[in-house]
């Protein structure tokens, strides 16, 4: 019997972490995966997805605006966008408990999140492309 190709047998590594929803911009997706893999698996619930998605898009937009602002011929709208994206990030970071301030008072002795296997991470990254 001929051997089956490696790709035909790839099964997803089970993960309880949130997956990036389809349609995220490239920068937002990278930020999504960075945040989800930095936090404990139980940190986010599926109901947090809309907030987290908006946070990641704001972060990507702020990063893009920062780059634009460094140019000499930058359009003034980038400053407005940068300010709005940052304001959004600050508000959502607290709600999503992503900033040091919102983590500190509750459990200062909380264990560091467990590291994530590369295979699990690759599965998360491939998830969006498969849809």
């Amino acid at each position, binding site marked *: 019997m001929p*051997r*089956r190709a*490696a*790709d035909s047998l*790839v099964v997803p590594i089970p993960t309880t972490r949130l997956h990036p929803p389809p349609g995220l911009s490239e920068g937002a997706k990278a930020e999504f995966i960075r945040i989800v893999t930095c936090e404990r698996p139980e940190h986010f619930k599926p109901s947090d997805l809309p907030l987290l998605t908006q946070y990641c898009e704001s972060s990507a937009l702020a990063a893009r605006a920062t780059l634009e602002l460094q140019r000499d011929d930058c359009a003034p709208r980038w400053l407005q966008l940068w300010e709005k994206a940052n304001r959004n990030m600050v508000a959502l970071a607290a709600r999503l408990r992503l900033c040091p301030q919102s983590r500190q008072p509750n459990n200062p002795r909380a264990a560091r999140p467990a590291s*994530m*296997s*590369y*295979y699990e991470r*690759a599965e998360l990254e491939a998830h969006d492309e498969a849809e």
Partner: protein
Amino acid sequence: MTKLSDVDRDALKRCIEMARTYPGRSEQIDWKLNEGRCSWQDTAKFCAYLCQSKNLRLEIMEFPPAWLIDADDVEGPAFKGKPQAAKLLRRLLAAGLSQYEPDPIRALAAAEKLQAAE
């Protein structure tokens, strides 16, 4: 014992060097090569397992690419992650890298950067 290519031998040498920096491993490697009477190749492959498992942050039951016979070696229970390891192995081989790269993701990134610069 399998004949190693130059690419594999170079990667395995780097695996031994890297594994020696891990706590307690240098003594273990010396023991394997001397009293333990393990061959250089077996010891180096053991180091490849140590390095790849650590750098890919694999769970204890997950296979690193170094453990696969070849890129078609994918059969077994899902928790071993052999298909994922095989996928990574295919990427390594396609980039002209060794199955035994101590840090496969960093090596792939460096190879892609080099390719982009050319």
